């Protein structure tokens, strides 16, 4: 996936100011930045939910799966009914087989008949991602997938997402947790006020933070990152 010079305006406010980046198969790209940086806007443009006011997006031959920040599924239906509905809407030849595959992938086979509203937030997020995977995407966009999950649920979620990337899927996820981005992202794209400040591996981001905010170099990475953003005028 490749994005070049993406611009998005909401009235007078410029939510994205010429953002560009690329992502390769099997790569996990973390889009990081404070609230209001433009992470959700960027992902929604990549997903085709919103149109950009400028720039272009190339997705290659494959499809793009999108997993919104808040679980987009029907809480009064069961796990299986949700998966079956979206498999049918995706016009799968054998929707039931796709459901079985997703139940295995999410590890929710035992809970297939449960109403989604009764599941934990982590399990709901797994179904949310599984629905995003039903389109068999070559690129999967995850908008803040770990929000509201406890540490155990987060660990299981990232294990699941990492396995997807291991199978060849390009995963682009947004987060405002710098440690999560550093731990799970092969590459990190830093956004602030609609600008792309950094695009590279997590180790290079640490180096850049140390170089540009030396006074915070001895502090924890999150504090140093905030100082780095401050130095860059954000």
């Amino acid at each position: 996936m490749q994005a070049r010079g993406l611009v998005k305006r909401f009235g007078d406010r410029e939510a994205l100011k010429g953002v560009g980046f690329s992502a390769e198969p099997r790569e996990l790209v973390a889009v990081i930045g404070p609230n209001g940086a433009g992470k959700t806007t960027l992902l929604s443009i990549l997903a085709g939910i919103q149109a950009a006011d400028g720039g272009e997006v190339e997705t290659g031959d494959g499809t793009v799966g999108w997993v919104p920040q808040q679980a987009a599924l029907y809480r009064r239906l069961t796990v299986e009914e949700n998966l079956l509905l979206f498999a049918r809407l995706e016009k799968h030849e054998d929707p039931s087989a796709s459901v079985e595959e997703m139940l295995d992938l999410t590890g929710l086979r035992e809970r297939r008949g449960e109403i989604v509203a009764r599941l934990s937030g982590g399990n709901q997020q797994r179904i949310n991602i599984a629905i995003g995977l039903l389109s068999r995407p070559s690129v999967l966009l995850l908008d803040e997938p770990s929000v509201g999950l406890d540490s155990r649920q987060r660990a299981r979620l990232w294990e699941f997402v990492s396995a997807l990337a291991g199978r060849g899927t390009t995963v682009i996820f947004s987060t405002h947790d710098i440690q999560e981005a550093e731990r799970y992202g092969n590459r990190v794209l830093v956004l602030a006020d609609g600008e792309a400040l950094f695009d590279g591996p997590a180790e290079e981001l640490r180096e850049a933070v140390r170089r540009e905010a030396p006074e915070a170099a001895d502090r924890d990475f999150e504090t140093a990152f905030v100082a780095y953003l401050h130095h860059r005028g954000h």
Partner: protein
Amino acid sequence: MRWLLLKDLQILRRSPLQAVLLVAYPVLIAVLVGLAVSRGPEKPRVALLNEVPANARVSLSGTKLPSANVQRRICDKVECVHVHSRDEAVAKVESGDVLAALILPEDLVNKINSLSTLSPGTPKVEVLVNESDPLKAGIVDDRIEALLAQANLTLAKRIAAEGGKYLNLVIRGGDLPVLGGGIHILGLQASAHILEAIEPALPNGPLKVALSQVTEFANQAGENLDIAGPLINRLAQPITVEKVAVGGSSPPLETFAIAVAATLTLAFVAVLLVAGSLALEREENAYPRLTRGLVSARALLGEKVLLGVVVGLVVTILMLAGLTIFVPLEWSRFGLWLAAIVVGGASLATAGAALGAAAREVRAVSLLAFMVTLPVAFLSLVPSGTVGQGLYDVIKVITALFPFKPALEAITSALEAGNGGIGGPLLHLAILCIAYAAIARLALRRFTRV
């Protein structure tokens, strides 16, 4: 679209309260309307103290008129609770056991009889009402006034009829019954004939002239009093009512009541279900995911309208079937019922979609749908002439902009022949359906914002 429809029906099934309300509501409406149209209004309970002696009769010039059966007439109109004293009547009214008490005093007939004497009295009846409830007081006032007006009319007719008999006796002659015997009255016409027969035998002179004048008077009096007879009869009821229907025919009350019940059911089911279901797509964050290539916004809108029409049709037909327990319906017109319910349901459902696209939460949308549907339904039932012309024109415009009134007209027309054509209301509904679909489609654009 069918998978989305199936999904919505599954969700509906998973919401027991919603499903129960959807079934229970029309059943309740059907039972209430059925009972209302198949049973007349309950007679109010009124305590009656009749102190008039059983043999008392209204008399005219010493002749007793036949009994007017006042007590029976009263008890036909109200449920009479016979009491034996004024105190008992007061106690029953105060306790709420009866709505009112009617006391016919002992001297009532004597007072009526005194009306034809030189010293007329004022006949009075006493009505005891518990004024603590203004609604009850109003009902009782209306009923008692109507009863007394009817009693006065009956009495006036009797008196006029008796008066007419005496007048006839004066004109044509006959026997007047007096004290068990009878007096023969010659009558003006016979008197004139006798005088006319005598007149030629008299010599010319002042006596013959005088006799001629008396004969002429007898003839003129007879002829003029003949005219007075009908006039005396008309005095009892000088004005009669002749009702002429102008400006179309109105459906029978039963049909109209059933049509109102069916339209209300259809409106609530279609509007609330579609508005809520569309808002649910947004509340569950599913809308952007669905319209990202899986279904178009137009198809989603169509699915919601179809949901409203299907569920509305089933529930309304069930309700009409329930009503047949109480009132016979013309099932031979089932095709027209279907047309009216489907087109009306589609129009109401698109209005629901437009409302559903206006808010993010299901609860807010449901409240909005309820707050719009109920007043519009109420306004649609306001008949012309009951409010000022200006206000009625405003009501007409408002009710024409929402599908309730045309749906009511279409269903009324479909239920029974002779209730006006169904084409006009169906065309009106189709236009509204297109307009609301366009509004809903525009409003759905807001859903895509993430």
